[in-house]
């Protein structure tokens, strides 16, 4: 059952008006950026050496870690010739006073599913390359999103972390033994990178009063009426949308939000590219 949030941060009315007034002038509460510009973003790859792939994303005060683990498992019955990709998100309680321990709530599930769809719909990972034995053994790729610090806009940070961890992932060495079983041996060098066909980012656009701004920080998010999450691939295509929050938008606002998202997306793609390049330079 989904319930109207009743345990929200209290933002004073005056503060709310101040935030809105700033955006109306093309400014943001942090004093550093305009409505089309995300906060400073860094992507660090390979932070968890024991995972197949990993990344730590810092987007303003928001920190999200993503880890990729791979197992050998069975394909879904209706896709015998595809590996399995699963995205899971945990809002661990160290990240925010609003998070309680327990199974993922609707926000964590929505986030994971939006990231999952954004990757899946565009074929970001070529699952057809992850088959070991058709219909029987395929790679199961787990992408685990771990929210470490909630400074607003978990969607964009999580999508970046997922994408970066996948770019960082290496397929572990495996062998088929006589019984036909497939045994993974992580003590041997990995077999190579995951087949990544597309890069995808999401750009979240918040509607605050009558104004739009990308990458809201925690305070902006708290006063936003609604957010539109726009997934874009490296070919510039819209590959996903999600209206999230209790408000509504006009068609004109939807159009403007998509335009803002397009404007902001290169910042994220650049952060991904820099991480990938510096990672290669390290030989890691």
């Amino acid at each position, binding site marked *: 059952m*989904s319930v109207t949030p009743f345990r929200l941060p209290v933002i004073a009315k005056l503060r709310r008006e101040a935030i809105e007034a700033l955006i109306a002038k093309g400014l943001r509460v942090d004093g550093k950026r305009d409505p089309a510009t995300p906060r400073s973003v860094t992507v660090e790859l390979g932070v968890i050496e024991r995972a197949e792939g990993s990344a730590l994303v810092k987007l303003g005060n928001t920190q999200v870690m993503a880890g990729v683990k791979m197992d050998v498992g069975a394909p879904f019955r209706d896709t015998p010739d595809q590996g399995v990709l699963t995205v899971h998100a945990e809002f661990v309680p160290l990240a925010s006073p609003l998070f309680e321990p327990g199974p993922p709530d609707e926000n964590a599930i929505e986030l994971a599913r939006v990231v999952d769809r954004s990757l899946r719909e565009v074929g970001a990972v070529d699952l057809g390359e992850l088959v070991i034995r058709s219909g029987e053994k395929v790679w199961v790729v787990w992408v685990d999103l771990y929210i470490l610090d909630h400074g607003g806009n978990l969607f964009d940070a999580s999508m970046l972390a997922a994408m970066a961890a996948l770019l960082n992932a290496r397929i572990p060495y495996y062998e088929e033994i006589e019984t036909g079983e497939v045994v993974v041996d992580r003590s041997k060098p990995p077999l190579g990178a995951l087949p990544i066909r597309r890069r995808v980012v999401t750009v979240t656009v918040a509607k605050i009063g009558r104004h739009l701004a990308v990458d809201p920080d925690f305070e902006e998010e708290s006063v936003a009426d609604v957010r539109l999450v726009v997934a874009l691939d490296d070919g510039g295509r*819209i590959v996903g949308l999600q209206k999230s929050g209790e408000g509504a938008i006009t068609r004109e606002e939807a159009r403007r939000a998509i335009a803002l998202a397009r404007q902001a997306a290169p910042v994220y793609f650049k952060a991904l590219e820099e991480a990938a390049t510096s990672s290669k330079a390290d030989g890691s």
Partner: protein
Amino acid sequence: MKAAHGRLISEEGLRHDGRRPDEHRPVKMEVGVLSNADGSAMVEFGRTKVLAAVYGPREPPQRFMLLPDRAILRVRYHMAPFSTSDRKSPAPSRREVELSKVIREALEPVVISELYPRTAIDVFVEVLQADGGTRTAGVTAASLALADAGIPMRALVAGVAVGKVDGVLVLDVDEVEDSAGEADLPVAGAPDLGLITLLQLNGVLSEEEFEQALDMAWRAIEDLVRQEKEVLRRKYQGVSRA
């Protein structure tokens, strides 16, 4: 990424069930179908059958949920075990959790919740048969059930999904089209307010296609809301005559 499962648009430009691209499946709407609920409605989009019931405003079972300045909405989207091709386990799936949220957020903008502080308005959406479009049929049924319950609303809402199959934009996708299609754009909104209250896109659309699809959806939503009003008027007049 979905694989094309064969041609779904015939040479005549018709869909696998004979519909034109911009044609909605037959729609049925009925209100007041349950006796216990404060409001209820059954909505059918072709073989998709969705039942919605509204209870409230009432005291929520856990009092810590109360808000001092408005009613909270509690919304559950749930599928009957026999509604799907393979039996669905009755435990709520991750998909049902997300759709409960998305449907609640599609209703929040139109329910005048400020009138009932410290109460809960409960909306239960049960999918009895699933053949594509269950979330948008669910929003439509919920809108009718809220009205039937006498909950004050800024406007009625309705929803529909536009898909892209074989490169063609099609209205009100069914399950076959959804699973084979290249994109699925569920939309719900309140035409009387000019507001979109639900918007998701799974799949790839160009900006132009997105605009066309939104146009197509909007026209259908306007039509669905007209039908909602008609159904409610019939019931209201029936009552006033009695």
